[in-house]
């Protein structure tokens, strides 16, 4: 089959799975997950095939796979949509296919497939466990299967469809389609346990916050389309088109057309990739089941935001002002989110803030022009963060075992202070989590995170972006610190609760994805080792730089090697890890944790501020101002005044004209007059013939006399 055809078909199996499950198989759990995993597997297979073929193409950057069809008629011409896999697309497709496939498999175990139905489980709430009686007549509480098991896989399928669509798009419009479908899925999946008010609100918050970014992005797309007449990447990124865009002037901030379009598109990413100031939705998104967190935070949605900016890099990089904004937002977010992560106790929330911070890293990298480094970190991060989220899900799952065992449901299985010593109970989870954590911290040489992070720092250093360099270095230190804090609190030391003592390793469907992702979390870094790195440089070619760099028309130069950024990244990674261990190895309870500072614990009070500044006023404007005041009081009030005036006029006409004049004076008056005259003349109508005779005789005489005297 032609590669282009395969690319067209990549997003379809998960979509088909979605429809099949929703319409037909939703009653059958095994069939539903079979279809979903099978579909994910099929797309994975196709992606690998495309990837391998892409590797075999000479100068792939110039000979990308592309195919288009007519979609919308616009005047004389057509708006075309199509698919395109170029080096960047192929690299992204690779990690997307792997992480999505692993998450599908993991979900089977996470939602307790094969376990009995719960005693009191309800659709829309997490499963609470089931009581079983064993052969000896003992009663045990065991995990129960998710009541909406099939639905979960349907949503996952739709989500995967959105991501594949986004990656294979050759234009901004279908990219936006995939982008928004993922937005819907994240809404549905975060609110998966919709019976919980917290989950319901988190889902709405996620949708609305990202939608703020989306409407700006839509304007950006409209602007770009109006200015160039196309949304296809390959047509926009031509020299004359970019030159044209850069030469348009706009009234906003003195930006060029390219700069403004870039900024508008970037705001979309700020929402989608949870960058400050639109970061607030992502930590709340932890209300969803854990595979969802991994899906949203690593494999798909948030990566999509960064991917879009990388994709639009040739456009965005035209205007230095926009680039500065991008770099500032990225660097600020990287540091800002890391400070919050330090003070969180929920195992998933730490990772959520860590994700925000790492995405900030990538954005900052793009802002300083480090195109390849940003893409590199995007991919390594996707692997190790998916690993960490799935690992944390495994930990929670193990802890839930403990909770079901003791029956004490007041123990929060996600609070790290309830854990401790899990390394013995859950060895696979521990080792893989350790790998993921070290990759996130940038543990030197072996982990992938080291190579990608180092490349960003090296680039910032080489081009003299000191502010960015220092901010990112501090953020990297904090990252290593909170990661080690997390590992120490969760896995090291002794169990701090009875529940942690009875935690259990999770089934193979959950640990297998961990192992696979751990493999990439280590090895993926080796494809991008800088050429001049001491000792290791040049042993393997810097494939990543060569391959992804060729996406751009002008191949970007690798940053020259310098020892200072390397030393910095070694110092912050190892130092952070060491201090994290040192401080938290003996901490027993949150009270002993010196970093539980209210302002950090409460995330710098952004939720409260937004609620006060935007959410409440919006509702006030909607209900009190628009509906009750403007529509009901003013507009309807005016109508009612008109109505009342008409009524008044009607009354006035009736009471002061119709009744007295028409009815009484003219109508009744005429009648009365006739009546009165009739009554007055009645005496002459007596009916006696003699009387009439006399009258006529008299009259005749009178007329005769008159005639005689007057006329003659």
């Amino acid at each position, binding site marked *: 089959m032609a590669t282009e055809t395969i690319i067209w078909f990549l997003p379809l199996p998960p979509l088909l799975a979605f429809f099949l499950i929703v319409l037909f198989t939703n009653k059958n759990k095994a069939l539903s997950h079979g279809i979903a995993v099978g579909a994910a597997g099929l797309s994975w297979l196709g992606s690998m095939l495309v990837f391998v073929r892409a590797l075999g193409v000479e100068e792939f950057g110039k000979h990308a796979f592309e195919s288009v069809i007519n979609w*919308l008629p616009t005047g004389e011409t057509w708006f075309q949509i199509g698919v395109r896999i170029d080096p960047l697309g192929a690299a992204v497709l690779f990690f997307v296919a792997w992480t999505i496939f692993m998450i599908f498999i993991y979900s089977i175990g996470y939602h307790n497939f094969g376990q009995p139905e719960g005693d009191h489980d309800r659709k*829309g709430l997490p499963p609470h466990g089931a009581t079983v009686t064993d052969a000896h007549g003992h009663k045990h509480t065991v995990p129960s299967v998710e009541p909406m098991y099939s639905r979960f896989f349907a949503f996952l399928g739709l989500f995967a469809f959105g991501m594949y669509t986004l990656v294979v798009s050759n234009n901004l419009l279908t990219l936006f389609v995939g982008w*928004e479908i993922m937005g819907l899925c994240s809404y549905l999946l975060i609110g998966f346990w919709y019976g919980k008010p917290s989950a319901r609100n988190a889902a709405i918050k996620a949708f609305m916050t990202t939608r703020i970014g989306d*409407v700006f992005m839509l*304007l950006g797309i409209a602007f770009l389309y109006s200015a160039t007449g196309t949304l296809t990447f390959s047509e926009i990124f031509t020299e004359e088109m970019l030159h044209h865009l850069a030469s348009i002037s706009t009234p906003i901030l003195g930006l060029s057309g390219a700069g403004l379009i870039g900024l508008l598109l970037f705001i979309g990413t700020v929402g989608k990739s949870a960058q400050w100031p639109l970061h607030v939705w992502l930590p709340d998104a932890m209300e969803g089941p854990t595979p969802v967190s991994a899906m949203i935070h690593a494999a798909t949605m948030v990566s999509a935001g960064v991917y879009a900016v990388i994709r639009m890099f040739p456009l965005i990089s035209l205007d230095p002002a926009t680039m500065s904004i991008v770099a500032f937002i990225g660097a600020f977010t990287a540091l800002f989110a890391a400070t919050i992560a330090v003070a969180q106790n929920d195992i998933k929330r730490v990772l959520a803030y860590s994700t925000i911070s790492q995405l900030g890293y990538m954005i900052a990298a793009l802002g300083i022009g480090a195109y390849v480094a940003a893409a590199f970190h995007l991919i390594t991060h996707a692997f190790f963060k998916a690993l960490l989220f799935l690992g944390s899900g495994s930990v929670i799952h193990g802890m839930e075992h403990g909770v079901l065992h003791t029956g004490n449901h007041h123990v929060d299985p996600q609070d790290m202070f309830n854990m401790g010593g899990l390394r013995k109970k859950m060895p696979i989870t521990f080792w893989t989590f350790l790998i993921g954590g070290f990759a996130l911290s940038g543990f030197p040489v072996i982990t992938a995170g080291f190579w990608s992070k180092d490349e960003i720092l090296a680039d910032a250093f080489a081009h003299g972006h000191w502010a960015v360099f220092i901010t990112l270095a501090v953020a990297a230190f904090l990252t290593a610190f909170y990661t080690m804090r997390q590992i120490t609190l969760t896995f090291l030391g002794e169990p701090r609760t009875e529940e942690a003592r009875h935690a259990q390793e999770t089934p193979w469907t959950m640990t297998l994805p961990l192992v696979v992702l751990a493999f990439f979390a280590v090895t993926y870094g080796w494809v991008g080792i800088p050429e001049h790195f001491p000792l290791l440089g040049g042993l393997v070619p810097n494939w990543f730089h060569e391959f992804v760099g060729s996406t751009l028309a002008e191949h970007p130069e690798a940053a020259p090697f310098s020892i200072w950024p390397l030393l910095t990244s070694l110092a912050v990674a190892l130092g952070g890890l060491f201090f994290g261990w040192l401080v938290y190895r003996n901490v027993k309870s949150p009270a002993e944790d010196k970093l539980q500072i209210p302002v950090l614990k409460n995330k710098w009070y952004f939720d409260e501020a937004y609620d006060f500044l935007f959410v409440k006023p919006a509702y006030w404007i909607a209900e009190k101002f*628009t509906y009750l005041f403007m529509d009901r009081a003013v507009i309807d009030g005016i*109508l009612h005044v008109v109505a009342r005036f008409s009524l008044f006029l009607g009354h006035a006409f009736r009471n002061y004209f119709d009744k007295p004049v028409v009815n009484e004076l003219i109508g009744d008056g005429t009648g009365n007059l006739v009546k009165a005259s009739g009554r007055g003349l009645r005496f002459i109508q007596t009916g006696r013939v003699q009387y009439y005779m006399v009258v006529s005789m008299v009259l005749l005489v009178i007329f005769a006399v008159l005639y005689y005297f007057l006329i003659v």
Partner: protein
Amino acid sequence: MEFIHAHILTLILFFPVLAAVIVLFLPKDKPQVTRWTAFALSLIPLALSIYLWVQFEPGKPGFQFEEKYVWYAALNSSLHLGVDGISLTMVLLTTLLTPVALLASFSVSDRVKAYMFLFLLLETGMLGVFLALDLLIFFVFWEVGLVPMYFLINQWGSEKGERELWKGVKVQARNYASLKFMIYTMAGSLGLLLAIQLLGVLFQTYDLPVLTEKWTALEGTLLGLPVATVKTVAFWAFVVAFAIKVPVWPFHTWLPDAHTEAPTAGSMILAGVLLKLGAYGFLRLVLPLYPAESARYAGALAFLAVMAIVFGAFASYGQKDFKRLVAYSSVNHMGFVLLGIAAAAKASGTLDATIAMNGAVLQMFNHGLSAAGMFFLVGVIYERTHTRNLDDFGGLFPLVPVYGGILIFTSMASLGLPGLNGFVSEFLVVRGSWPILTVYTAIAMIGLLFTGAYILKGIKQVLHGPLNEHWAHGEHKLTEINTREIVVMAPLMALILVIGLYPAWILDVINKAVMMLF
């Protein structure tokens, strides 16, 4: 077949009247027979419209399937019918939504015969507006449609509810709503009628193609005034009449009342088709007859459109009544239609204008599908719970999973989710308006944002959250959407998805018509 082909427009237009008469002679004590007969007969105009769609040649200039019969010889007015790509789309929408709405009305048990009779007459009234190529005929049908709708709201509307007019004066809500609807529209039409008379007297004909040519070319003085002044006055007379119908802010307050009080199927048709009459008036009459005035006042129209978009969304978000929430969403969505029209009026002939106009016409069709669907779904739950108050629901999803799925799907279409129909048209409008009316388009985005807010609010209050136990047990137990109701939704949902994924089949027809017209 030959006969059908030659008279297809007359057949489509008047068949519903014939059907209405047939319904009138059915036995009174067998409502089920009446329902099925009315429904089955209403499928025939649909079949004819599909035939018309297939036979229609999008690339051919001018009107097709034209028919002309003398109607009022003394006035030189004739029953002149014809379709182009724009009216064809609207005819298809009308003939599709009528059977759907009739099927949705099977739960009406009060005076079924009269109900079905009026509904079928309503269909003719609406079709007449879309098919007419004679101004007087246009106006006649414009008014004809009002009467059945008035009675549908007034007689079959919701029985509960009162509206306080001013201190101490209260009226029944459905009386209030139906009267407001009727009087508002008629008041708006007065100016239209005068303006139409002016044209008719001036040129001794009401034939639209002829009028368009002569009227736009007219210069000099008229009635002792410069023609430009007369045209401006007549332009605004047209605009006000259609703006009330669309409805455009600030003439929109009849809509939430009428939509909320109307019976379910009445709301479906009101939102699905009747609002389009106003927008169609802009496309068929205002823009062709007043190109210069439209361009001059496009900014004012765009301003009103943006007010409708933004405040329609806000007002919808501020509702506690589910049906009223959906009603206000129409103000929001129709605002995009007018924004597209304004953009097209301002820069007539450019590619941007064509795109904006394509978006506006497609948005009319799309809104017809999603709004009808939303009103129906509100009706489904109202019939079971007898409440529309959002606070009375909560967590119903586990009780009615199929209904919930359909509601989310339709809501997403209304929200403009890419992949479904609403996005395509809204994107085209935004794309087309951006270079022409940049600031207005940017402000409209606030409305787009709050579209999300009110849609999610509806889903949140009805389906999500802790289950309201009241609906879970005993006599109040909420029952799942039934097969008939799913059949009502099926064609709407199918079209929503098909247009979302591959809009070219319908947009091509619209695009060619727009290109030839402007």
